[in-house]
């Protein structure tokens, strides 16, 4: 992981990028576009959760709090203060990051994984109940609707771009831009000295301490960054669907889906969360008729993957075609 790119991996990345860019030219079917937008939103969320859980080794189970805070924060700001969603998107991320720093501070004092799991789950529950209870602002369990869409603009050479439920292609490209941006941030971070120290820290804290890195500050920074990215994903989700309920964005079911995606793809790998998001989202859509079995399936997947394929799908390739040792 994070070795210098080989020619093969460069070609793979370029191929995937071209395919993603060209997909709307092949088909602009609104349903396919919609599924792909969801894949990318979940891809961002999954990658950010993987950043703390897989790379930094902080096993948290409450990242849906940040998704919900980003979604509700951005939606409420744009609805009540009439700020453009283009700006509230980032404000939503900042709100989530602030919450991330707030809850990250006590977590980092604890080494016990069980405590971290409990606190993060409890925090997410607090966020959910607060959103449900402050119904004068959030409309409670009824949820928000009529959340403003992104304003259209004119792109040189391409003409006017509009964002409306009827035209999913512009949402597709916007989510692709966001996905690439967030992945870029994660890759830069992981290839930096900080990122290397972080991997060292995951594999044994003494090693990182000898590198002269302030562990606590670094973990807190990574936790905040991860919360920020998840918050952005949540904010985009809010303006994309323009409907929110506490259960849909701060429910434990959402977190379970993300955990299933990352575990299926491969925890602690770069492509794993993306592969997982793609595979599971498409699989779920393909089996719409079995909607009532969806969460049952996610649960079973988590148990089976953890027991029989603990490193996820992306390591299957290496297992089937082992690379020659250098």
């Amino acid at each position, binding site marked *: 992981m994070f070795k210098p790119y080989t020619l093969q991996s460069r070609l793979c990345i370029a191929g995937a990028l071209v395919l993603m860019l060209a997909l709307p030219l092949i088909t602009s079917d609104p349903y396919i576009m919609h599924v792909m937008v969801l894949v990318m939103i979940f891809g961002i969320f999954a990658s950010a959760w993987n950043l703390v859980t897989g790379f930094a080794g902080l*096993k948290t*189970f409450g990242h849906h709090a940040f998704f919900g805070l980003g979604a509700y924060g951005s939606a409420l700001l744009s609805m009540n203060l009439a700020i453009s969603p283009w700006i509230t998107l980032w404000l939503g991320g900042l709100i989530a990051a602030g919450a991330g720093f707030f*809850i990250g501070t*006590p977590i980092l*004092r*604890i080494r*016990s*994984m*069980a*405590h971290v*799991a*409990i*606190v993060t*789950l*409890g*925090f997410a*529950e*607090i966020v959910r*109940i*607060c959103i449900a*209870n402050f119904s004068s602002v959030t409309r409670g369990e009824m949820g928000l609707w009529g959340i403003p869409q992104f304003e259209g603009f004119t792109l040189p050479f391409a003409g006017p771009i509009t964002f409306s439920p009827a035209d999913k292609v512009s949402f597709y490209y916007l989510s692709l831009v966001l996905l690439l941006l967030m992945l870029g941030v994660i890759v830069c971070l992981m290839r930096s000295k900080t990122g290397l120290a972080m991997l060292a820290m995951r594999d044994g804290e003494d090693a990182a301490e000898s590198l002269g890195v302030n562990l606590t500050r670094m973990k807190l920074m990574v936790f905040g960054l991860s919360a920020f990215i998840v918050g952005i994903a949540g904010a985009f989700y809010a303006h994309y669907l323009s409907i929110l309920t506490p259960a849909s964005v701060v429910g*434990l079911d959402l977190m*379970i889906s993300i*955990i*299933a995606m990352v*575990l299926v793809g491969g925890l602690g790998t770069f492509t794993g969360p993306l592969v997982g998001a793609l595979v599971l989202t498409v699989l779920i859509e393909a089996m719409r008729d079995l909607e*009532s*079995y969806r*969460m*049952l399936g*996610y*649960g*079973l*997947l*988590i*148990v089976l993957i*953890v*027991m029989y394929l*603990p490193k996820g799908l992306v390591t299957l390739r290496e297992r089937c075609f082992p690379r020659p040792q250098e």
Partner: protein
Amino acid sequence: MNLAIFLEQILNGLITGSMYALIGSGIALVYGTMKVLNLAHGELYMLGGYFTFFLTVQFGLPPYISIPLAVAIAFALGMLIEKLTIEYLIVRENWAFTTIAATLGLSIVLQNAALLIFGERFNTVPYYVQGVMAIGDIRLPWQRVLIFVVALAVIGLFTWLLKYTRLGWSIRATAQDRDAAQVVGIPVRRVYMICFGLAAALGALAAAMLAPINAISPWAGIPVLLKGFVVVVLGGLGSFPGAIAAGLLLGVVEAIGVQLTSSEWRDVISFTLMIAVIWWRPWGLFGKK
């Protein structure tokens, strides 16, 4: 607010707290012995409630038969779950995370299986005892008094079990030093299985006692699990006596907190308390560092 109502609320808090104690002590027992955080504990509670409901309402068994039977089924189910999942994971290198993830997955499986099999309906069981106990101005339904008495009896039974029986000794020895326990001849894996079963039984008993008051539904497990977590954090994760004390304390704190605010803030009060405790005393309120 007059004194009688205030005292009544405190007593109600203690009664609720005794149930928190049963739920939390199951989580503490498993964590203390195996270092496994069981995220499926809430679903074992939920299933215990369903077992009670079916045995009492569908099959018409009297509570003094249906409740022990439901608890016994939960005990067996807990052991089966441990045997099928945790036993394989706990020997692996990254067991701390994989056991959390697996029990989380399991919790979703059980919850949704219950939804598919039992449906969305909220089920209740008739009161096991009728009438209201009155002492001066304080009035408590006998059902609530029964809950408290049963909880105290079971807590007493478990304390005795841990302190004086062969099984209890093997549980405490395994909790303190797994290798040393094996060396003196304790079959550690069997102890793990029994602990998981006992925790499930404690959860199921709480569900059975609460079934007449709190409706049983497929979703009943999640809030119970989270409340159980608050209890074990307050009591010091893995401490059985800590969980008992913390459960009772939490019940009273919530009762007072709800008096001062309103009932929809009950959970926020307890989760905030939990985060504050993790901040200041991560090893719990009672124990030493």
